[in-house]
Each structure stands twice: as structure tokens, then as C-alpha cells.
């Protein structure tokens, strides 16, 4: 198994007086095909961890390797490319674009990759089929239920075939039934070989995951895998 995510001594500080140290030296290794849930109360630094792991921000110090690429020294353009090619995002608020159909929303996952429109559409159809929404392709987000919207978002995260699917509270805006079905979808994807990093404050969700990483005050205080090892 190869390592797809590697954080060593990652520190992230936000300027201010005094500066806020959101990550205070985090070490984390995720291997290809793993399903990791990062759990912690608000203010524990898990959102910052998501920013750093998702290449949305660079660490203040330490090294982050995403799919082998060290992001610390990348400029904005390169960092954007890493996000687009190597990471698939799923957000709590779905973040689908109104005014575009489910199919178009999913195909936008490849918009910045230089793939032709026809190919994007073909792959978007496949991705929507994978999440069980083959019959909702021409629906706009407003005409979809919350659970369906999140499925569209998952399809969009998958379409570029990323090394890591990064999900930030993916069930936070869903009722328990829809939440459970999204969790089941993510588990199926993991069983099919996807690497999934899920961030949540929900201990129940974390409890069901094969590996739990617990954060507090900008540090990893517990890693079930590390304990097992």
C-alpha cells in the first residue's frame, strides 16, 4: 500500500494578536484505500486540518504531501491544480451551483482539467449512475432533496478520479435517514478502493469508521490505528 497523504509536524497559525495556532504540530499518514474519520469538537482544528489536507491552504510550517506532492511551497496556480486533480471535495452545504442541472454540476468537476465537454458529460453520466441518480440528471439542485443533492456532490467529487475524497461534515445538513444513506455510499466507495477522509464532530459517525483520529486543541490526541499498531 502506498501513502496518499502524509502530514509531518504540520503547524498552521492564523495572524492576529495573539496569533491563533489552529494546528500545533500534526503528524498523520493515510494510505491508499483507507477510510479515516477525523473527529473533534469545534475549535479543535479539524476545519483547519481539512483546509491543509485539501490544499486550500498551505501550512505555516511542516510538510504536507498530497498524493506525493508537497504543497508547502506551491503557488496558487499549482495548489489549485492539486485540488482539482488529486482531491474530491464533499461539503456540508453541498455547494451545488443553482441554474445548472445535476449532470452539469457533476461535469464541472472536470471543468478545469482541459477535458472536452463531451467527455465531461459522458463521465458525469457514469458518476451520477454510480451514486444512484441516473434518473435525476436533468434536475436542477432546487428540484432535488437534500440527500440527492449530496449524492450529486459526491458524484462531482469522484468524476476527476481523485486520490483522496475529502468530506467535511457531509451529513451535517441531512436528516438521519439521508445521512445514513450518504454514509453507506461513502463506505461502498471505500470498499471499491477509494481513499476517504471524513471530518465530523459526530462521535456516532466516527465510531462506525475503521479508523478514527481524534483532535483537540490543534493536536491529534488519539488515533485508533496507531493504538492498534
Amino acid at each position, binding site marked *: 500500500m502506498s501513502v496518499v497523504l502524509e502530514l509531518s509536524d504540520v503547524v498552521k497559525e492564523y495572524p492576529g494578536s495573539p496569533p491563533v495556532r489552529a494546528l500545533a504540530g500534526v503528524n498523520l499518514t493515510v494510505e491508499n484505500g483507507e477510510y479515516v474519520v477525523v473527529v473533534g469538537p469545534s475549535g479543535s482544528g479539524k476545519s483547519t486540518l481539512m483546509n491543509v489536507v485539501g490544499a486550500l491552504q498551505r501550512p505555516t510550517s511542516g510538510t504536507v504531501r498530497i498524493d506525493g506532492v508537497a504543497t508547502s511551497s506551491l503557488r496558487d496556480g499549482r495548489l489549485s491544480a492539486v*485540488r482539482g486533480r488529486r482531491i474530491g471535495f464533499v461539503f456540508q452545504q453541498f455547494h451545488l451551483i443553482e441554474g445548472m442541472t445535476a449532470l452539469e454540476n457533476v461535469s464541472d*468537476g472536470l471543468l478545469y482539467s482541459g477535458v472536452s465537454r463531451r467527455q465531461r458529460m459522458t463521465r458525469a453520466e457514469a458518476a451520477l449512475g454510480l451514486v444512484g441518480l441516473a434518473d435525476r440528471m436533468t434536475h436542477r439542485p432546487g428540484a432535488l432533496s437534500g440527500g440527492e443533492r449530496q449524492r450529486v456532490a459526491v458524484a462531482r467529487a469522484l468524476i476527476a478520479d*481523485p486520490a483522496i475524497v475529502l468530506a467535511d461534515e457531509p451529513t451535517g445538513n441531512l436528516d438521519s435517514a439521508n445521512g445514513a444513506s450518504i454514509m453507506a455510499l461513502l463506505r461502498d466507495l471505500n470498499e471499491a478502493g477509494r481513499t476517504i477522509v471524513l471530518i465530523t464532530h459526530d462521535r456516532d459517525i466516527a465510531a462506525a469508521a475503521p479508523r478514527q483520529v481524534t483532535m483537540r486543541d490543534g493536536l491529534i490526541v488519539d488515533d485508533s490505528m496507531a493504538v492498534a499498531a
Partner: protein
Amino acid sequence: MTTTTNGFDRDLDSDGQDSTPASRLRPADAVRVGSVGLRTRPLRTMLTALGIAIGIAAMISVVGISASSRADLLSQIDSLGTGLLRVAPGQSVFGDDTTLPDTARRTAGRIGPVTEAAGLSYIQASVRRNAFIDSGITGGIAVAAVDTNVLEAVRATMAVGRFLDHASPDAPVVVLGADTAKRLGITSLVGRPRVWITDSDGAGQWFSVIGILEPSPLAPELDSAAMIGYGVAATLYDATTSPSVLFVRAAPAKIPAVRNVLARSVNPAEPNQIEISRPSDALEARAKTDAALRNLLLGLGAVALLVGGVGITNVMVISVLERRGEIGVRRALGAGRRHILIQFLAEAGLLSFLGGVVGCALGAGVTAAYAHAKGWVLDVPIGSLAAGAGIALGVGLLAGVSPAIRAARLDPAEAIRPT
């Protein structure tokens, strides 16, 4: 630019070198992405584009109306021909007005290429509807004796009735110019209208109106004249046959040659006292000289465009604020700052271009309606339509720069989080 089609090979670089293919946005996709925001908010799009549409419509109609007016003048010149010369006596060395020698029309007619030579002589008389109107009130109408071929010479046409002819040179009949008829209130020959013409001593005589002329662009003096025959003029008013104005027509190509010899043949004694002009030149000059007004109106259109552009900037700033989430997502999907910039520039440009196209149609419509009402030839220069759409696009891109930069500068991590 990388050309790999899948580009998602999972080769790990152990040294941390970045082998990620760069993000890119195809031009067609940029336009498509730029149009999403517009399609999502149609009312806002319409209202914002309206400002640009009004500006462009104003500019197009100004250009179109002035072009149509010019086209009309030129077509008038075409139909009237450029083969007319107007010969008038200059002032004598003492500053007196003079007349041409009464042989003028004969000597001019003898010049080879000349096809018509017709004289007009002003008479000391005034014309009114009846004898009870004070003789001082002339209405600016001149009484003139004219040769019967003057119509052919200046290519004027009758609105109603007939012109003076050889059949009745001595009869008390009169033909009115277009303005004269309007001022006297005579628009048709129904009821056999008469006018009262008095000489300088106040002795009057009824004249029957036998015809009314259409406006005569090449010889405007006919418009404000009441025309009678030389015979009756001589009998009643002791008028001579010396023309005050002589109209000479020849083939347009021969006009310069005719012009060279005309003064000498009309007045061999004092050729330098003769003034010769070519009335079609004045029409041509008019076709070129409405530039001042046109530029003023174009300026107004430009102001409307400026206001429209500011409107676009405003709406785009709002749009960027509202769509932080979308911007964040696109950044997460791989868009670099550049691609966000391009998206919002494309949106502003499209919005304005849309307004420009509507404005072009509107402007062309206004021009068509105006030209139709005026009875002009319609002429909307294609170049002005292209320029209108192009200017609109430029204004939109310019208006979009600042909001697009704001959008591109948003921090992706912050944009993605709800605030």
C-alpha cells in the same frame, strides 16, 4: 499546456515534485461558465443590460439617422443631377445689384454642351390673397417672371396643375412655389384660387393660380416665388427680359468646361461681375456638415454607456458577494485565480454584449422608423452595428475588471465556509 487526455495517473513522486497537470479553462467553457450566472438571474440580467442597450441604441440611431439623411441628400442629388449652374450678376463696382444682359440666355444657350438656359427676373410687385391686405405684408414672397423652360433647367416638378407655357404668355396666370403656396394658404386648385398682385405704385390685378411646384432643392428661389410669364410682366409692370438669375443645364461631365466660358459669353464686357455657382455643391456640402450635432448626440450616447457600465460594475460586485460559495467550490474543483477572473470578466462582457446587441436592434429600429416617417432611404451602416456590439463588449469587460479581481482574490478556504 499539457495534452494528456486522462491526466489522472497516480504516479507518486517520492521526491515531492509536483507532476500535477496545470488547471485550464477552455475558451468555450469560459463563455459557458460566464453565462450561468446570467441565466440564473434573468430579471437582473435584463435590467442591467438595459443601460447598455439604451446607450448603444442612442449611438446607433444617431449614426443611422445621420447616415440615412445623408443617403437621402445624395439620392436627391442623384435624381436632380449635378449638371446645373446658377448664373447671377455680381455687384457693380459701385455696389449696386445688377441684372444680366438680356442676351444672356441666348449667348449661354449657344455654348455647345448647354441643353437649357432659363432666366428668372424679379419684379417690383407683391402678391397677396386679396386687395384688403396691406401691401407692406409680402410674406417674403417674391414675384418673378420666368422662362417657360425653367422647370426643365432646374428639374423641379409640379405638385398640382401645370406650368406657364407658350400658349398664354400674356394671360394673368401665376404658378406658385412650394413655400409661396403654403404661405398664401393655397394647397390645391380646387375653387380656382386667385391672388392679388400689385405693382410698386399700388395698382393691382387678379391672377389665376394654374399650378403649384414641389420643393425645388437646386433652385430654392423658386420655392418662395410667385411666377408669371415674361409677356404679362412686360405689359403690366414694364419688366425687362434681363434675368436676375440664369439657370444653365449641361451634361455633368461638361460642367467644368461650360463654367470656364460661361461668364465671358454671358457678359463679354464685364465677365468678372458674373457669379457662377453649382447648386448641387451646396447639397453635397450639407451632406457633410451635420457633424457637430451628431457628435453631441454621440457624446450623450457615450454618457449613457458609461452609466450602464457603472451599473454592470455594481451588479457584478453584488454577484461576487452572493456567490462566494460558488467561487469557493470552483476553487476546490481546481480553478486558479485566473480562471475565476476569466469567469467574471466573461460574465460582465456577455452581459454588456447582450445589451449591445439589443441596443443595435433598437437603434436600427429607431432609425428605420424615423427614416420611414421622413420618407428617406434607410441606411444603417453595418460598420456602426459591429462597432456598437464591440464597444458594448469593451465596456462590459472594463466594468467587470474590478469585481472579477475581487472574486479572484477571495481565499478559497474562506469562500467555501458559510459566514
